[in-house]
């Protein structure tokens, strides 16, 4: 006879009420396939004790920022905790903020853009070559390089939306492709910035902080407002979290996906211009090292403020945590390789944190 020991428990627990037998809903779990009962029935958390925990979970990364500042201020009061140092941190991280905001918009919609480093290098290379070789006026050169960057975004969007290739793949290829073109344009040389105009615009300081930081802040504000208070922003989240449902509800999912890829190319171009102005010389590969910090910052931001959602303020905080952390470590005169260890470590820890702290959103994302 078949062994029934393990099924007898189930039988004892089950409700034998005969009226249940014929309910039409019962069909769902008996017929495999589409109708499986799959609803997750999380019970409401007990209110009260969880309030503080929820707060700490949600603002952990934000709280990390003052914590790091205090830590380094104690360890290196004379070098770290100075106005000059903070001005430098904000100024030198403008490029990171701008790139990370572009990537935030892309990740919100469920896509990836790995090509911003190449686009940045290409944009800078185009400007430099147009001015030095063709003696073009700066503004025209800058405008043409903007068109070149947007073209990169459009090609990305075409492959992703029209040809349905994963953005991960398309932009990975595009990043290398654009770096290569940039190297071709500059003859693989490091070229000094020929434009006085760019240098002036990008090194101007307001209250001691370089102008580009404020460009970054403006972008953060715009994207924050868009995601929170504009229909398109809401639809961007839907494109990422429930693309099929969004499509069937009549939301222009594809336009949104194309739009963010083009926007990301725009931010890469802007970052390229900032870099060109801030540094005395460029080469087409200068954007490459930003790949990791950008993702680390955006994922740190993902865990905070709008916990479990990529958001602009979170990204800003993420950038600042990275910047303070790596500057602090450098000031403590740990060797400069520490920056890479820190950035890489933060990316992994950020994602791990997201899982530990995170709400139900994070599980499905990472």
């Amino acid at each position, binding site marked *: 006879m078949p062994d029934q020991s393990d099924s007898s428990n189930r039988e004892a627990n089950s409700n034998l009420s005969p009226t*249940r037998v014929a309910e039409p809903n*019962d069909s769902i779990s*008996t*017929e495999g396939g589409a109708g499986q009962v799959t609803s997750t029935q999380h019970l409401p958390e007990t209110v009260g004790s969880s309030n503080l925990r929820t707060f700490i979970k949600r603002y952990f990364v934000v709280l990390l920022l003052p914590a790091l500042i205090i830590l380094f201020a104690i360890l290196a009061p004379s070098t770290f905790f100075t106005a000059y140092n903070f001005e430098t941190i904000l100024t030198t991280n403008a490029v990171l903020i701008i790139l990370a905001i572009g990537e935030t918009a892309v990740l919100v919609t469920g896509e990836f853009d790995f090509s911003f480093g190449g686009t940045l290098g290409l944009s800078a290379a185009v400007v430099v070559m147009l001015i030095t070789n063709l003696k073009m006026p700066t503004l025209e050169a800058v405008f043409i390089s903007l068109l070149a960057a947007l073209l990169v975004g459009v090609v990305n969007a075409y492959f992703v939306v029209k040809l349905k290739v994963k953005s991960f793949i398309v932009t990975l290829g595009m990043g290398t492709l654009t770096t290569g073109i940039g190297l071709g344009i500059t003859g693989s040389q490091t070229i000094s910035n020929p434009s006085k105009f760019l240098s002036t615009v990008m090194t101007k300081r307001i209250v001691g902080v370089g102008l580009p930081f404020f460009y970054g802040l403006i972008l953060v504000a715009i994207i924050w407002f868009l995601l929170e208070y504009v229909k398109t922003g809401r639809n961007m989240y839907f494109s990422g979290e429930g693309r*099929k449902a969004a499509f069937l509800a009549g939301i222009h999912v594809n336009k949104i996906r194309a739009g963010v890829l083009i926007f990301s190319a725009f931010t890469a171009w802007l970052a390229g211009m900032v870099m060109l102005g801030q540094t005395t010389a460029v080469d087409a590969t200068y954007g490459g090292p930003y790949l990791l910090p950008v993702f680390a910052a955006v994922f740190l931001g993902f865990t905070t403020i709008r916990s479990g959602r990529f958001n602009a303020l979170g990204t800003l905080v993420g950038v600042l945590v990275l910047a303070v952390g790596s500057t602090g470590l450098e000031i403590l005169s740990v060797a400069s390789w520490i920056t890479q260890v820190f950035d890489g470590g933060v990316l992994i820890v950020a994602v791990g944190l997201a899982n530990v702290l995170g709400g139900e959103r994070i599980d499905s*994302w990472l």
Partner: protein
Amino acid sequence: MNQSHSETTQPNALEVSHLTMRFGPVTALDDVSISINPGEIHGIVGHNGSGKSTLVEILAGTYAPTNGALSLFGSPTPFPAQSRDSSRFPVAVVHQDVGLVGSMSVVDNFRVNRFTTTAFGTLNWRSEKRLTRQRLESLGLEIDPDILVERLSVADQVLIAVARALLDLEEIRKRSEGKDQEILILDEPTSSLPSGTVDSFLSTISEINRNFSTTVIIISHNPREIMSLSHRFTALKNGKVVGTYITGQVDYTELAELMAGQEIKHNADKRVEFSSRSEKGGREVLKVENLIAQRIKGVDFTINTGEVVGITGLLGSGHEDIPYILCGSSPKEGGSIYFLGNKMEKLSPQRFRQMGGMLLPGDRKLTSGVPLATVRENMTMGYLDPYLKGRVLSKKSEHRSVSNMLERLRIRPKDPDRTLATFSGGQQQKILVARCILRSAPLVIIDEPSTGIDVGARDEIHATLREMAKDDTAVVVVSSQYEELPMVCDRVLVFQNGIISGELTGDQVSEEAILKLCYMDIESKVS
């Protein structure tokens, strides 16, 4: 009509007795006893949720039953899920989804796990391919073993799966010292076949049965298949055996009556009162003329404001495609669709929405709801206009509107900022239905509104749908659960094989009438 069938001296090929299967509080099979004669083709027929699939899963070894006994060819045998050595179990199951890997070749799929090797330990491709070719030819399939499975027609794929199952059975027979015992179970084998290829597939199965004296059990929701192929069949309803019958002795009308059974009355009190069924004469919202699509072979219907119209049919009859064709996400091959009198030239979900159409698809986790978004966001998805001041979203007014809706539909917890995923299935569905109320569109199409939800939530949703139709709205409920339609619909369109086999209005709407139209022999009526 009941058959007594144990007079023959030959033992039954397969016999299950007092088989019961419970999943928590749900009883999927309730004291089911079925005997299959050796060498026969035995049909198992039943509506959605009758327990057919559970029976197959138990015989395939997926579940161990809660209770019951099995005997094969006269000797008691443990169920495969309870047996230590199920590799000798002489039953092969070809599942609905066939179980082939599309990106691999025919020979790979055919011989997976059973490849023979040469003396050097390498795969013996030549003999494997020869074997594959031979086997397929014996079923009348001339196929290059190197071709990828995904490049074959669905009909050929199903046959490859059948051939593989037969080979399995043969190997089991060899191991069990050549006794001529084998049972092939086909679970809804024709559900994925294009309609033109079903007949030739069924005749192939008949031939296998005749030539190899294989006992075949065929599970199907399609009465025609059972009627044309089986020698005997067993009807299941709500997990119980209605009876076992000799195929030639039952006609389609009797079959429909069997499927309707006696238990149908328990829902009668929930039926829409006829006096409350709407008066005809609303404004025409939708007109469909001679619509043709993949599974739709030319249908006409109109939908008016103020009515709830049900669209149903057996699985695969085409009714399930209607919402997606209308909203433009599934292609239409012919015919015209008029929306509020305008002919819709190019259909797309965006156009559909702009014209005032609203679709609530059937999968809360994937196509209608966004589990990770909040209740507020889910409820106002695709229609934020009422909460915009200029172009800026007023979260306060959105929040207020959603809170009111949660109150009105008694959804707990009343927190608009929780994610949808934290609610139970029934609450989720109510939240999504609220999206339709907030939108107040002239046409609301809801696909499978009661899938996976409890009776209480279902009744509340039905009440909401009826209320919605009182306003200047037409509501279309597409459902494979025919039982719910009399509770909510003024009118029901029943699909069968891609055409409308009948339309029921007002007093005519009943479970019995719907089932009759589902099972009616529509082709013979036409000719």
